[in-house]
């Protein structure tokens, strides 16, 4: 094995894959053992930020991932409260990354999980994700930066982990305050404490290994560094094998895949938006949660941007709807015209942000 591959990345990749298969077996939606975008969207629904009945549940996995990162970073003395790198810009990028992910129906992590489940639509998403990363890398090479962070007060660093713990405590104590789906993906969940514990373990390992879906491809393209990409590959292999072992693998196809649509152009473009935006943010949605857990206030703001993006995606009906069988007729899902327009607006917004923060427009800072 190359010395440049960190074994922690391989271990974390395997853990994420096992956790995804396990949580699905215990009740999470199919091919959605772990999906950061879907779970933040479900939390937005549970907290009444949107009213899409099928996607409302306060997912403990999000709390666990952040908490696991906080615990690991405190233990390794890496926890550091920092912020100040264009938080409002990051909020907006986070919102569009979320909208892109919900158009495709999954964050980069679920994309890999869907690939391992035999969903060929996710391979189209992968192509889009790669194109998005190439666009982002182009701007990084042109000096793109959202400027530096600074050390800030400890409260900033604990803001998101603290908020999530508080909300989760209230969720456990008075669940009736929150919305629960009666059908659809939001109605399918593994036992809350098991989800929490599994996510804490995954979050801790993800902090230690720096696992990042976008980082894998970005580093491979920019530096011929395949360290993080190896984690991506391991997740795919483990999920694939897990599905085969559990008898859930029925071959590769674009048709009748769980919570997936075959409007391929929008699968592609949704993930271009995710890839491009994530490169500008410096990491995929999973990585943003982990960084927020380490005390990064900018990433905490990004997560809040994703939460608002999820609420917009459903309130304005921008999100994709899955292919379905209606009266025995296969109906291709996809996105409404509003969703298509907002994806295009998203490209325009990312282009403006990319140009204004790179040396293509401004002079290089001394």
């Amino acid at each position, binding site marked *: 094995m190359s010395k440049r591959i960190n074994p922690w990345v391989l271990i974390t990749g395997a853990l994420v894959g096992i956790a995804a298969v396990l949580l699905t077996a215990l009740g999470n939606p199919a091919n959605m053992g772990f999906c950061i975008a879907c779970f933040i969207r479900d939390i937005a629904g549970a907290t009444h930020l949107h009213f899409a009945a099928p996607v409302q549940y306060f997912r403990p996995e999000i709390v666990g991932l952040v908490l696991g990162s906080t615990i690991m970073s405190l233990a390794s003395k890496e926890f550091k409260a920092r912020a*100040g790198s264009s938080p409002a810009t990051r909020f907006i990028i986070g919102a569009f990354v979320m909208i892109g992910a919900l158009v495709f129906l999954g964050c980069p992590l679920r994309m890999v999980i869907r690939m391992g489940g035999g969903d060929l639509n996710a391979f189209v998403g992968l192509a889009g994700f790669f194109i998005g990363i190439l666009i982002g890398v182009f701007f990084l090479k042109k000096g793109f930066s959202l400027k530096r962070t600074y050390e800030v007060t400890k409260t900033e660093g604990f803001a998101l982990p603290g908020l999530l713990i508080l909300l989760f405590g209230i969720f456990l104590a008075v669940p009736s305050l929150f919305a629960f789906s009666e059908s659809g993906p939001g109605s399918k969940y593994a036992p809350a404490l098991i989800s929490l514990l599994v996510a804490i373990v995954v979050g801790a390992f993800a902090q230690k290994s720096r696992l990042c879906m976008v980082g894998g491809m970005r580093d491979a393209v920019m530096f011929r560094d395949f360290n993080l990409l190896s984690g991506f590959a391991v997740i795919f292999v483990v999920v694939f094998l897990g599905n085969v072992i559990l008898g859930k693998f029925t071959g590769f196809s674009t048709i009748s895949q769980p919570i997936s649509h075959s409007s391929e152009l929008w699968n592609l473009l949704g993930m271009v938006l995710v890839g491009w935006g994530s490169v500008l943010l410096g990491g995929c949605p999973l990585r943003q949660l982990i960084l927020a857990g380490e005390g990064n206030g900018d990433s905490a703001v990004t997560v809040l941007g994703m939460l608002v993006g999820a609420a917009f995606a459903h309130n304005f009906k921008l999100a994709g709807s899955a292919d379905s069988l209606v009266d025995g007729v296969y109906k291709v899902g996809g996105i409404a015209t509003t969703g298509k327009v907002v994806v295009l607006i998203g490209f325009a917004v990312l282009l403006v942000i990319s140009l204004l923060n790179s040396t293509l427009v401004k002079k290089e800072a001394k």
Partner: protein
Amino acid sequence: MIDARGQSCPIPVVMVQNAVKKENHPSELQVKVDAKVCVENITRYAATVGYTVSVEEADGEYTLTLKK
């Protein structure tokens, strides 16, 4: 000395990469960062372009010295 403190991933590595190219593979380069992840990333990159790296830590900041 490249000051990459506070820059998010992977910008510190891009800064080092640009300096290596611009200065035509200098025999020595110094970089300052403030996150362990940047130390790891720069160290991995430096190895691919033939540099060995030594790291000094003080007050949560790291000074990396890259040598041919």
